[in-house]
């Protein structure tokens, strides 16, 4: 599904990523972990095209996508959530999800303005699909509330719902559990598993909550100082001395 070959990225002389390469199998859940500043978010941005890599190659669904605009990459079936929530705050929950449908719909200014039949049909279908997604992520009861009024946990879930609306093949989750309590984190884990098994969507997540990572991931990649220091199943990673050193050395968590 996704193949990274020698990704490097510099910010003003500082190497944020160096020669990162790994492959993500279709239908798997992969986690990206590492201490703060290890380059996890930078890597997600490089993959989704928001901050393209200086060197290397991102191959998504068999095609090279680096150099393409994030919009094009999104339309090819890569969707994501954000570490610092980026919801459309003054739109309702349902509207947020419908915006996700935009990548799959067409009606422009003229068609919507004149209420052409195809635009109306499209609108009905978007609405229906979005409502189904709200059911799926269990936010239907907040359907008409402003997104900014939701508690943080539900906002994170809503971002996932919005990403699902774009019908992605690959879903990037940037710290989906940040700010969530235990119960919310457990529910989130369930949701991610369901998305993988029921919808068959490949998932890459960046996460600090190790319990969550260990319980849902098929494969884990560990980054430190912009380099991949380990890659393997949760069990392998837990035993890897390099990983333990990196974590004990740098972080209290």
């Amino acid at each position: 599904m996704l193949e990274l070959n020698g990704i490097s990225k510099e910010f003003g002389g500082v190497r944020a990523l160096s020669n990162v390469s790994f492959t993500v199998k279709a239908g798997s859940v992969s986690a990206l972990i590492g201490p703060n500043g290890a380059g996890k978010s930078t890597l997600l941005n490089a993959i989704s095209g928001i901050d393209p890599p200086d060197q290397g190659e991102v191959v998504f669904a068999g095609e090279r996508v680096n150099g393409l605009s994030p919009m094009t990459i999104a339309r090819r079936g890569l969707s994501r959530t954000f570490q610092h929530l980026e919801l459309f705050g003054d739109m309702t929950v349902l509207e947020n999800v419908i915006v996700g449908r935009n990548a799959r719909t067409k009606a422009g200014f003229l068609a919507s303005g004149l209420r052409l039949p195809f635009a109306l049909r499209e609108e009905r279908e978007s609405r229906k699909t979005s409502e189904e997604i709200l059911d799926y992520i269990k936010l239907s009861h907040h359907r008409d509330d402003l997104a900014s009024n939701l508690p943080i946990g539900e906002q994170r879930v809503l971002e996932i719902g919005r990403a699902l609306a774009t019908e992605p093949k690959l879903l990037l989750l940037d710290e989906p559990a940040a700010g969530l309590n235990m119960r919310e984190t457990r529910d989130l884990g369930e949701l991610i598993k369901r998305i993988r098994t029921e919808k068959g969507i490949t998932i890459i997540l960046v996460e600090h909550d190790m319990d969550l990572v260990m319980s849902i991931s098929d494969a884990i990649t560990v980054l430190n100082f912009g380099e991949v220091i380990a890659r393997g199943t949760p069990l392998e990673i837990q035993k890897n001395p390099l990983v333990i050193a990196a974590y004990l050395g740098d972080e209290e968590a």
Partner: protein
Amino acid sequence: MGRGNFMALALMLLGVAGMPFLTSGSYALTVGIFAGINALVAIGLCILMGSAGQVSLGQAGFYGIGAYVSSVLSIKFGLPVALSMIAAMAVASFAAVLLAVPALRLKGHYLAVATLGFGEIINVLLNEWGPGGPSGFGDIPHLTLFGYTLSSTTANFYFIWICVAAVIIFSLNILNSRTGRSLRAIHGSETASIAMGLDIVALKMKVFILSAVYASFAGALYAHYVTFISPSSFNLFYSVLALMMVVLGGITNVWGGVAGAIIITILPELLRKFEEFDVLVYGLILTLSLLFLRKGIVPLLIEKAVRLKGGSGARA
């Protein structure tokens, strides 16, 4: 279109239909015509600013392009007015693309000054190359539709307000659709919008074009009603006035543009009684209104209505 919008539209059309019977002579109707023309410009600006979050201090440029292109085509080339108006809107769209290419790289004050510059450039060009130069030119034909020439004030009044109603419906349709949501999404978070696959550049470009089409349409209507135009009607002061209408009426709602346009057009007429003092009173009213009616008149009224009903929701 929600119930509130439907009611507002019905109320507006009722008022428009009744106006000629409630007032005697064509003075009130003429005020109404200018209010309608201004409303068209304001609605475009409302969508541009309120929904897409782009500022424009150059609407007078598009307004002027509409007036000049349509007049010149109909006088010099004998084009039927309806066609020349459409051509004028096409030219304005093209100008909007030219402006949008550099302007979309900019934000906030920089965008404001770029659009301001655009409006001023158009004004200089009208002064230099427009027929009649700074003095302007007259004898512009009235609009003829299906063999009927709109020369009387009443006919123009009805026609212009029907156009306003059509534009309102068209705009509300856009805002309550995929396109409108995309615009609001961009306003909310550009990063997320890109990640959702929205074509931000194209959308901003198109919304610029939309506002330019509305403004140029208004300009063409103005020219073919007054039958005389000169560059001074399309200068920076008009751009600022349009901005004032939108902010006063309420930037977040299309009706805000309409209400603002009506108020800004009628206000000087009401202040004629103050003679010399009208500039002072005008400035004072504007300042106080902005200070106390911050969100704009229409959003405040909606808030009030919602509170009275005890409900929630009713969004445009």
